[in-house]
């Protein structure tokens, strides 16, 4: 039985990075490095993602059809891959955000039970 739970924990962690990527792309299509920077900056540098792990995650999202990829030109005029949120991805973002909020809320309640009684 233990294997099942382990699997879900892994999914959860993966899912978090996926959620952040989807959220970042909501502002418009951009390239890999910019996504990494955006996640770092927006979290006030709390979330230190190993930037490389971004790429397998991007591939996974493409495979699921949540984002698409296209050729584009970066700010300093270099050719780069631009990732764009698809309609399916937009829907998924809503679902994932909702899930995440529920989870965060639940964990918060466990960690600070008093907050609930209020």
């Amino acid at each position, binding site marked *: 039985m233990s294997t099942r739970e382990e699997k879900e924990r892994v999914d959860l962690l993966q899912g978090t990075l996926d959620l952040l990527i989807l959220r970042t792309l909501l502002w418009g299509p951009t390239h890999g*490095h910019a996504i990494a920077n955006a996640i770092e900056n927006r979290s006030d540098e709390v979330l230190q993602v190993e930037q490389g792990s971004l790429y*397998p995650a991007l591939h996974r999202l493409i495979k699921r059809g949540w984002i698409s990829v296209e050729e584009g030109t970066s700010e300093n005029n270099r050719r780069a891959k631009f990732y764009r949120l698809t309609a399916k991805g937009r829907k998924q973002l809503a679902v994932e955000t909702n899930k995440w909020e529920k989870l965060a809320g639940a964990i918060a309640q466990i960690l600070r039970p008093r907050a609930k009684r209020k």
Partner: protein
Amino acid sequence: MNRRGKGLLNDLDQEIREHIELATEENIDRGMAPEEARCAAMRKFGNVTRVKEDAREVWSSLWAEQFGQDIRFALRQLRKSPVFTIVAIFTLALGIGVTTAIFSVVYGVLLRPLPYSDPGRIMAVFEVNSHGGWSRLADPNFDDFHDQNRSFQAIAKYSANFSSVSGASQPTRVTVASVSADFFKVFRIRPIVGREFGSADARKGAAPVALASYGYWKQHLGSSPDLSQANLKLENAVFSVIGVLPDGFQFPQDADLWIPADRDGENPSRTSHNYDAVGRLRERVPVERANADISSIARRIHSTSSEQGDYLLKDGIVIPLRDSLTGKARPALLILLGAVGFLLLVACANVANLLLAQASVRERELAIRSALGAARRRLIRQFLTEAFLLSLVGGGLGVLGAFWGVAGLVALAPGNLPRLDSVSISAPVLVFALLLSSAVAAGLGVFTAVRSTSGDPREALGEGGRGQAGSQSGQRTGRVIVAAQIAITLVLVVGAGLLGRSLIKVLQVDPGFRVDHTGQIVTMEVSRPCVEVPRAKAAQRIFFANLIDRLRQIPGVRGVGATSGLPLVGGGLPDGMFLMLSQNELPKTPDGLAPLLQQKERIGIADFGVVTGEYFKILGIPTIRGRIFDDHDSPSGPHVAVISQSLARERWPKQDPIGRTIEFGNMDGDLRLLTIIGIVGDVRQYGLDLPPRPTVYVNLFQRPRSAITIAMLSDAGTQLVASAARGILADLNPEIPAKFQTFSQIYSASLGSRRFNVILIGFFGITALLLAIAGVFGVMAYSVTRRTREIGVRVALGASSGDVLRMIVNQGLRIILAGVAAGIAGSLVLTRTVESLLFGVTASDPLTFAVVILLLVAAALLACYIPARRATRVDPISTLRYE
């Protein structure tokens, strides 16, 4: 991995480089030294190799990886028990190989499309007579079909004849097809050299022209593209070859020359069936519509024609040409395919039992794996992989064997099996073998997997360590499989037995001629050009009389007879309507016969044979009454006839036919009356297994014809007689070729398809029997091994070795009897399908059933006895000590 993934992964290197460069530049902007900035960027990025691997992982499927694992594991398993693996593979190779070989014959003969453009639209057209039989077309009927149909873009008639052809490199007997105008349009064939027939070529009195086959052109016309010198003498005319058809086109079968039909005008009779017909359907016209179309034309002819009677068509029918060419071979081949399918089932059953036994040995392993969390689905896949490996290797070996088997089949096949030359291991046959192997694999894999993963792992583990692994249900399944094997084997062996008895019965039939000296009869087919003029006919008579006289002088030759058609050869004799007529009733002109043909009491129907008196003696056809032809019957004297016994009985019941006169001129154009002088025995002209038909024989020396077969009874060697005869013929006329055979060859060839079926189904039956016995032996031996402890206890408690023997044999007997019961039921249903191939026995022949059942039960009991004997030698001390 899909293409999108591949593209992204290919670009990933570049993308990572860009990323790190951008990060480095940012760091430099923040004031780091270039070197330091790069290091920091790389640190932040992480392990590049792992990133790439992870990305690759996203796209690679888990399934493929596990598949590799399964295969490696399966190979290890199979290597671990080599005896099991080899036996299983060879059993499957046998089953799949034999099935593939038979399928290649079925495919080549029945299924392979004809080698013409859009062959599915080429149809054969027949008349349907008042008895429901199909016949060839009469000229005016064909013309009506041709002019009135709305279904065919082209329709043509054709007929094929053997003719002696001279003028090329050497005189030969060639199949010459007379074809009407649109014949080549039907096949969409155009000459590769020269031109095709024009409308002028078919007109009466036009210069005779012919088209040659590619093979004939190469062999006899020197492959010369200049045809101006290619003139061939056949049928008393010189034909200029005007074109050569493409390689491979030889329709009708073996045709080498094609000439325009009706060069002498059409036959106006609607009841003279002289032509076959083929047509190419218009686009989007289905067979059914063409059939209805032709049928309505035929019925219109039937209702309006003045020529009523049995020989006038009643209806018409259209069927695909391929089916019409192979129609007769179809039932026997489908039966063979069914039989070989049964053999395959028996073979698979053996392998299934082996796999089950193997799986029960691995029960503990499976239990452990499933306890450790392996999903049942995963275990099932493991079994499937093993079954696939076995089946594919077995199938591969089987196909190799089939290459060899097909050569054997083709050699063994009867000469009259159509399209035998297109039988080979072709691509569709290989696809069939692959599908068959996969189906076998899927069946075996799912079966063993479901059977051996359904148990509760705790049970197997709990039982473990006591040396009695294996569930009761697994053993029960094994017994059911063996019973099924016995049942299927019984069906096969009964089928083989019925066919074998039929062959014996056919050989016992009295064919009406002597069969004990067929090896001493040398036959010689001779054909001269066809002639109609009386003077030319007289020349023909003199030629054959001379030839026969000279042949008589060959040393060792004891007698020489001649006939228009030997028994058991080709399509038999022509048949027709004769009139019972006295001399003073004979009308002055042929037209006067028509009203007489409407008088039913005058009409008889009989086959028409042209023979010499000595022919009856040489074949041993007995004279029942009166006399046969002799030297008194001169060409100018009264024309005489000999009739067969069944005709005498049928047409002159309780009367003496001798001395009566008949008119049978429609067969050879000679209207002189025939006086019946004798009655001879019935002859099975069409085959040993077909009833004799009423026959009228006339005298070759009074009614000469162009093509005859000479039968020489000789004590000398066949080769000597043949070469002497060839010399005599060349001496008389070097332009006439001859074909030699012994009558025993003809006799044996007429049994060819029967023998083919008996040999094959007999082989399947024996192989299935051996496999089933191996199956019984395997299951019983396995059961004894498993019950060793139990037997030990029984012996320790006082059971005698007789008790043990009885116990084991009884267990086996129950399986065998269950199988036999099911087999009898199955046979009674299934042998009906072979009914059309049987002769002289019924499909439920009690003797065959009894013998086969006894044989099978005895063999199976023997297979039980050996393990049972072993069980009696179980030593209670040593088995119990294992505890």
